[in-house]
Each structure stands twice: as C-alpha cells, then as structure tokens.
C-alpha cells in the first residue's frame, strides 16, 4: 500500500478523533463532566471503553509475542481477563463501586478511597502512587505502538511516537472523559473488527481448521529451541514444566499479576462510576466479555499459531526468526496479512495505544489536579478543570521521557509490573471499602503503605527481572538479589506484596477498632 494512501487514511482517522474530542469538549460544562461524564454514560460506550482501555498494544504486540514464543499458556490471561476483569469486576465490584461513588460524590479512585476512609492522606497517597507508577505503564504502551509503526511502515519511530502522543493529548486535554470515552468506543470497534479478521484470515491462508491447527502445533514441539527448553518450554500447546523459570514468569507475573491486577486499576474502577444504574453494568458484562474473547483471545491464539505460518513460509519458528518478542506480531502482520490490511491494522494498533493512553493520561491528570492539588486554579471558579488539564500535560511529558529509556522485550513485563503494584497497593483497601465495614482508616493506610513498600522492595532486592537491570542490590550488597536460591528470584513481587498488604489491613484494623 502506498505511503500516500496510508497517510490519507491516518489523516481521516485523526480528524474523526478530533471531531469526537470536540464533541466531548462541547458537552463538558464542569469538573464532574470532565472527570466522570456526569455519571450518565451509555453502557455500550462504557463497556467498549473498558475493553479498549484494558487492551493496549501491550496485550496485542507484547503478549501476542509471548504467545508466539512460549505458547498457549498465555490464554489463561484471556480467560482471567474475562472471568476476573469483566464478570467478577462488574458483578461484585461494579454496582457497589458505583453506589459508593454516588454516596461520597467521588469523581476519582483516590477520592473514592479518601472519602470512604475519611482520610486526606489516603487520597493523596493513592494519587501519588498513580501519578508516579502509571507513567511507566503509559511509556510501555507508547513503545508498543511505536515498535509496530517502525516495523511495518518503516516510519521514523520518533516522528510516529510524537504524532500520536500529540493527537491523544489534544482530545484528552480538551474533551475530558467524554472525549476519551467517545474515541475509545470507536477505537474499540476498530480493534474488534481487525483482530477478528486476523483470526479468520489465519485459517483461510493456512487452509486448516481449529482442531487440526492445534494438533499441528502440538506436533512441532520438538522444534522448541534448547535455550527455551532449559527455561521449561515443553511446546506451544503445553504448559511449561511446573516450577521452571518460565512457569514462574507465566504464572506469577503474567497470569496472576495481570489477572488479579486488573481488578484494582484506577482507570478501570472509575468506569463503574460513570454509569447511571446497575442495568448498564449488566449490559456491560455481555459487551465486555465478547470484546475480550474476540480481541485478546484471537491475538494470543494466532500468536502461538504464527509458528505454523512461519514454519511453512520461512522454514523456522517465530522466536528463531526474530529475537525481540515485541517484534513477532508486527512481522506476522507484515508477512501473513493482505497488503491493504496493513493500514487497518495500523489503525488497530494506534487505537489500542490511544485508547489505553488516553485513559492513563486522564487518570494521571485527575490524580494530579483533582486529588493532589484540588485547589489549583479554583480560587475564582470551583468547577475549573485547569488543574486536571495541567496534570494531563505533565503526565504526558513524563511518560514520553520514560518511553525513550525503555529497552527491548519490556512491553509484557512492564504491563504486568504496573498491574502487580496496583493489586498489592489498592486491591485490599478497595475490596474492603465495598465489603468490610469493620476495616479502619489506620488499617487501610497501613495496607497501602505496606503494598507500596513491599512491591518496591521486592522489585529492588528480590525479583531478578527488575533487580538486575536496576542494580541497586548489587551496588549495596554485592549480589543480584538478596535470596539467590531458586525459585525465590523468579517469584513476582505481587506474591510477596499482596499477602502482606492483606494481612496488614486485617491485623491493623483489628488492633485499631473502637
């Protein structure tokens, strides 16, 4: 496809986004509109936005590449995204979160926690955690989009990154949450159609059925490279050897980190506070599950099956063809899909990046402007949104800077890391605000602090994947990690931090009950 035609498609897409952002801007009258859409968002738009926010380029490029390298074990993530991220979240968290938000007139996740526990400190700490940790996740999402554009379209990565960051910035800053939601809904539909097409196209070009393809993939298990066999890889249709390094990464970091972490992500929690009643949430379960099944499920499935395609066309498996996991899916799209689809998939990837990024920027902006500095710019007009807008700008600049420091193969791990921190820090207090009235303010505060410190400590001194690149443990103690005996260096920080933060909230609440 010619660069000119691609350029025209992208320009049309950007204009549509700008128009949707303008619609959001026109309908935003005050800070409640800007933060929550006045709690009257259409369930279809909310569910599509929830799904589109959930699924970033990390899910498509990062985890798709993980599926191509390590196999179908990653499908547990799809199943948990549906079961925990949609069914459990909407059924057991959604309605109560919405009611609590209305009761306390909370517009952000930190406000929800701060007002419920009647603690300004809790609100500020939650806001600080969001504003400090989320830029890392946002940077990872940015990198996912940039890698794809660089690979398929041979565009300069810096220019591509700059343009789509500016586009997102414009509609988030101007349109607020309505701008975010309207664009998310469009982007969600593009993602759904594109990823479904990739699934169908694979079976068409390979001329095989679902069962036959799975069996063929099982039959080529002997092609697993020795370096992956040493990590526990047993084939693309088999789980890794239990207790092997690959098993610990897959189960503790990717599946548990993301599967559990998705429950306590501030940018997803606020979606529940945007709808008018529980009827909307019931509808959201249907839309959300279908969306995740055909988007995430498709790309993980095709990621693993791409080995059959590469074996047939290139004579080797995916991970032998490209060493960087994050480049496998872009290469598959380039080689396997029809030429015209490149443009559609580019929109899909831009949509995935932008929908997640816009929610992150909005959440970080809200944490900055509505939670950390609520009085900024409001001396004359209490409904001013200027502080949140300033927060969005700061968040974008910080995320953009971090993006340039990221190395290869970080997309899937960076996502899991952020979600793990969210789970350890926010999940116990969030769950208790909905279900455990006996939990005290002191217990909640202690749990949040324990979650943060335990996560950071485990990353710096215990978990090999972060401790070695950071290097603080080596410089202080002369070793890569404090506990070097296997399997401790492989166990994700979430598995240390979450039980500790849960134990803390229970013990401290029992001790401080009146």
């Amino acid at each position, binding site marked *: 496809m010619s660069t000119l035609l691609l350029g025209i498609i992208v320009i049309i897409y950007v204009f549509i986004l700008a128009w949707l952002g303008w619609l959001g801007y026109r309908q935003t009258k005050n800070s409640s509109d800007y933060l929550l859409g006045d709690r009257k968002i259409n369930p279809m738009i909310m569910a599509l936005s929830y799904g589109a926010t959930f699924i970033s380029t990390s899910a498509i490029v990062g985890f798709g590449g993980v599926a191509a390298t390590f196999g179908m074990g990653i499908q547990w993530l799809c*199943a948990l995204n549906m079961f925990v991220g949609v069914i459990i979240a909407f059924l057991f968290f959604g309605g109560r979160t919405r009611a609590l938000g209305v009761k306390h007139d909370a517009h952000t996740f930190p406000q929800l926690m701060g007002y419920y526990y009647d603690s300004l400190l809790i609100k500020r700490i939650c806001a600080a955690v969001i504003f400090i940790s989320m830029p890392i996740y946002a940077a990872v999402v940015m990198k996912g989009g940039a890698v794809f554009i660089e690979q398929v379209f041979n565009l300069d990565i810096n220019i591509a990154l700059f343009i789509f960051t500016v586009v997102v910035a414009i509609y988030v800053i101007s349109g607020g949450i309505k701008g975010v939601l309207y664009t998310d809904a469009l982007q969600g539909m593009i993602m759904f159609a594109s990823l479904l097409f990739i699934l169908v196209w694979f079976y068409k070009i390979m001329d095989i059925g679902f069962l036959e393809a799975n069996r063929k993939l099982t039959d080529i298990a002997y092609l697993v490279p020795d370096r992956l066999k040493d990590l526990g890889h047993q084939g693309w249709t088999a789980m890794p050897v239990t207790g092997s390094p690959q098993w610990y990464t897959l189960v503790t970091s990717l599946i548990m980190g993301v599967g559990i972490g998705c429950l306590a992500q501030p940018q997803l929690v606020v979606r529940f506070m945007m709808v008018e009643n529980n009827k909307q949430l019931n509808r959201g379960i249907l839309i959300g*599950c279908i969306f995740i099944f055909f988007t995430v499920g498709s790309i993980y499935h095709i990621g693993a099956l791409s080995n059959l395609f590469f074996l047939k066309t290139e004579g080797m498996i995916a991970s032998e063809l490209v060493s960087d996991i994050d480049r496998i899916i872009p290469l598959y799209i380039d080689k396997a899909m029809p030429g015209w689809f490149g443009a559609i998939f580019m929109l899909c990837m831009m949509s995935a990046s932008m929908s997640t990024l816009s929610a992150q920027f909005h959440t970080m902006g809200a944490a900055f402007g509505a939670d950390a500095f609520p009085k900024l710019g409001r001396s004359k007009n209490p409904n001013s949104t200027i502080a949140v807008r300033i927060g969005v700008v700061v968040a974008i600049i910080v995320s953009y800077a971090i993006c340039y420091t990221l190395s290869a193969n970080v997309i899937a791990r960076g996502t899991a890391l952020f979600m793990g921190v969210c789970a350890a820090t926010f999940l116990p207090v969030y769950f208790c605000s909905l279900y455990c009235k006996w939990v005290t303010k002191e217990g909640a505060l202690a749990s949040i602090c324990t979650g943060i410190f335990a996560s950071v400590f485990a990353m710096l001194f215990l978990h090999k994947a972060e401790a070695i690149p950071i290097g603080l443990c080596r410089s202080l103690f002369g070793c890569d990690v404090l506990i070097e005996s296997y399997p401790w260096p492989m166990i994700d920080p979430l598995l240390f931090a979450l039980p500790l933060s849960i134990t803390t909230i229970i013990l401290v609440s029992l001790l401080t009950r009146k």
Partner: protein
Amino acid sequence: MFGIDDPGIWLAYLLAFACLVFSVIYGIVNWNKDDEKENSQRNQ
C-alpha cells in the same frame, strides 16, 4: 479437548468459552434489569 492434550491449556480455553456463554446468557436475561434495592429506594 480442542485438539490440545495438556489440560493446563485446554482448561484455559474452556474457561474462556464458559465466560463467553455466561456473559451472553446473563447479559440477555438482565438486559433491562436494574438493582431492585435501588429501585425501591428511588420509589421511596
């Protein structure tokens, strides 16, 4: 099941399919159903 021998993998597929079926049935059955408590509170 699903042409996959390892239960560790096909169970993941089974869970995903089960969630899909549940969501479709639940969504259709409760499409217009609001929270009863909330309705009664509103009526009061």
